[in-house]
């Protein structure tokens, strides 16, 4: 947080720089005392690091590749004796723990990248709609209400069923469908902010629309966008897991937390541990993201109700 503030301060011309330091340093001060949020953040970092280092773990710790099979060791129970079977093995003797690590890479990547697409689309459309109003606002609002009118899972599932996407297409599809909440929020904020005195002041000294939007309005919306982003990533990871679970997201042999469950379902009577571990990881990741979102909200905006 502190470094972000510093760079913003450097980028803005000193004469026009707005004293944003107090908000961020205040937020940081509050966050440091919020053990739950810090804990969630640390767990998330660990999960991310483990997934990122999946090839290292499979080579040097577990000595087992994620696609490696061993028909003599199917349905191994979780055990400490052989590190590769730490979390058990599946119906063709693949190591659950190694596959979970690799699965995390896909699940987390899809979550973060799709959320980035959401943010880009949502913020730019919301900002334009709220700032320019008129027909543009009507058009954007129409798209938003239309997308909100279709139960999200229906739309996603049907698109996925008809086109059968891979990781990249899935990111694009979720990225282009899931931005409406962010957009509505930014639009509402922009609506209110553009009437404020500092915007009028900027306009009187001759600032162009683009400058007002990105230098004066966006920085005021930005803090809460971080909150929305954290929650959005969590929601996307849940969506991806549901899609992959239903066999419409990312297909095996590429493991994701969702499609590991699809497979596990067929064998859950014999190997319940295969069902438990991917779900726990999804739950833990999403829980951390939501807790971070909540913590950031409390830290960044004391006026906002914690709905």
């Amino acid at each position, binding site marked *: 947080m502190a470094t972000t503030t510093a760079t913003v301060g450097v980028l803005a011309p000193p004469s026009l720089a707005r004293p944003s330091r107090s908000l961020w340093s205040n937020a940081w001060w509050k966050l440091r005392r919020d053990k739950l949020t810090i804990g969630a953040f640390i767990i998330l970092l660990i999960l991310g690091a483990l997934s990122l280092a999946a090839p290292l773990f499979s080579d040097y710790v577990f000595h087992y590749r994620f696609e490696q099979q061993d028909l003599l060791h199917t349905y191994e129970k979780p055990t400490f004796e052989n590190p590769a079977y730490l979390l058990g093995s599946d119906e063709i003797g693949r190591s659950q723990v190694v596959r979970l690590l690799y699965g995390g890479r896909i699940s987390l990547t899809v979550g973060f990248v799709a959320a980035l697409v959401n943010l880009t689309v949502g913020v730019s459309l919301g900002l334009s709609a709220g700032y320019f109003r008129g027909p543009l606002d009507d058009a954007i609002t*129409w*798209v938003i*209400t*239309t997308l909100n*009118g*279709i*139960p*999200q*899972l*229906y*739309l996603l*599932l*049907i*698109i996925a*069923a*008809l*086109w059968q996407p891979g990781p990249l297409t899935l990111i694009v599809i979720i990225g282009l469908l899931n931005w409406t909440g962010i957009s509505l929020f930014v639009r509402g904020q922009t609506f209110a902010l553009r009437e404020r005195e500092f915007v009028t002041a900027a306009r009187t000294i001759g600032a162009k629309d683009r400058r007002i939007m990105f230098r004066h309005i966006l920085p005021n919306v930005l803090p809460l966008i971080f909150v929305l982003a954290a929650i959005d990533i*969590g929601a996307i990871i*849940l969506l991806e*897991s*549901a899609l992959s*679970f*239903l066999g419409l997201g990312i297909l095996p042999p590429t493991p994701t937390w969702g499609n590991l*469950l699809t497979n596990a*379902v067929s064998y*859950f*009577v014999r190997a*319940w541990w295969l*069902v*438990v571990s*991917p*779900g726990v990881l*999804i*739950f833990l990741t*999403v*829980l951390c*993201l*939501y*807790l971070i979102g*909540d913590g950031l909200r409390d830290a960044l905006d004391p006026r906002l*109700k*914690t*709905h």
Partner: protein
Amino acid sequence: MRDFIIRRLVYAVPTLIGISIITFAIARLSPGDPIRLFTFGIKDFTQEDYLRLLHAYGLDKPMPLQYVDWVTNIFRGSFGESLIYHRDAFVMLMERLPNTLQLALVALLIQLIIGVPLGVLAALKRGSWVDGAIRIFGVAGHAVPAFWLGLILIILFAVNLRWLPSIGMLTVGHDQWDIADRIKHMILPAFVLALTGIANYSRILRTETLDVLAQDFVRTAHSKGLRERTVVYVHALRNALIPVVTALGGILAALVGGALVIEQVFSWPGVGQFTFQAAIAKDYPIVQAGVMFTSTLLVLSYLLRDLTYAIVDPRIKVG
């Protein structure tokens, strides 16, 4: 009030038009030619037959005209015949509707019965461990993948403990009016479907109750010498319940959308499962009927929410 209702209804029209365009486009733009798909393997199928079928289904017309035809037919109550079952798609969908409604309504009840008291309790015990536990539950309830929870509960209660059936609405071969049997089948899916809503309501009610308890009229009620219980349940709670109504739109959306996955996990023969299966089989008329119908339901529920909100809270300006 009447103007308000009419205006809201008019606002819903462009939304429904947008939804219908998307629904139409999804089926038409998806890869694979439906006629090739369903005549595949017929031996003496000539190019002439193909063109004749194309013409018969109106698929040789330009897209916008096809769209107009499609919408006109919807107003006549027809989404066309299912490509697989050769029965009217909408009729088939409606046969599944009661099952989904049953599940959604029971889930809604569970949400209210559990979620609301949890939220109020957390607010009354603010800062205690009870409050902490309920708050964590409020976040955790959103973070659990519902389909996974469903699986775990099936493993636990159906496979290991054998207390409850794992899938379907009824035991095959049972009397279909055996209520106890139906309730047993209902418990797991309804609870899983309700979970997000329980978490949602507990969060909302907690903040609202805290807000209301801090207001002047509550202090006045206290200073009049009213009992604590009267103040909380008569004065405060009535006001704190307003957002239960506002949240309803989003919660209905979650119920309708979420039902699809839950129905799939529990093999519950509802609208969501039916539409999903149709999408996999590329049975477009059913897919279109399913998306159009649930979306309309959703738009109407948003409408209903705004309306009830205006009625419940007189501070909302009507007009």
